[in-house]
């Protein structure tokens, strides 16, 4: 069964460093999303992406964040200068055209020291 994959599973970085989280959405999906879950809190929407541009972003998704689809399979989330409060699980999701269900990857645990 097709699934969303994410790498790395765990990323440790120093505050102020740049990180890139990678996702491979399900192959025939065209709508992509990033969510995050800070420990003990709810899953929060960050950004949606379609047709090579951002469709919607939340207040969390400030100028330090960016997304890109560098090729036909990868979808990345970049945090330019990480802060301690960026420590969280980051989930990528994708959705097929005409469908309502989003399918999630296993997540990347980001730890900012």
């Amino acid at each position, binding site marked *: 069964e097709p699934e969303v994959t994410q790498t790395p599973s765990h990323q440790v970085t120093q505050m102020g460093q740049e990180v890139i989280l990678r996702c491979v959405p399900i192959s025939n999906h065209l*709508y992509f999303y990033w969510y995050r879950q800070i420990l003990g809190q709810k899953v929060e929407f960050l950004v949606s992406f379609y047709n090579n541009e951002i469709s919607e972003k939340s207040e969390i998704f400030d100028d330090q964040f960016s997304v890109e689809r560098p090729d036909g399979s990868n979808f990345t989330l970049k945090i330019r200068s990480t802060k301690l409060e960026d420590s969280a699980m980051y989930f990528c999701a994708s959705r097929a055209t005409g469908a309502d269900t989003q399918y999630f990857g296993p997540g990347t645990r980001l730890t900012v020291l």
Partner: protein
Amino acid sequence: DQQVKQNSPSLSVQEGRISILNCDYTNSMFDYFLWYKKYPAEGPTFLISISSIKDKNEDGRFTVFLNKSAKHLSLHIVPSQPGDSAVYFCAASAPLTGANSKLTFGKGITLSVRP
């Protein structure tokens, strides 16, 4: 901003019995609702969904009921099995408009099924 509320943080049931997980929402624009199951250190796994034009959707042991007037939905698991022990998230989205349809999640309910 709790547009999706799962007020009970945990639920414990005996194996073989029914598990009923509740969810309330406040945004009347939501028209699609989903339940996800999550194990520790894994991503949310889609379980079942329901559109606002329906009041019930069933898939094997899982049934979701939607009461639009009460802005309430519930997930029934019958019979409950120990492997169902996980965190269950209720999520909702507003009408699809182009490429939107972000999901708004509740805080989750931890279900424990006792053998």
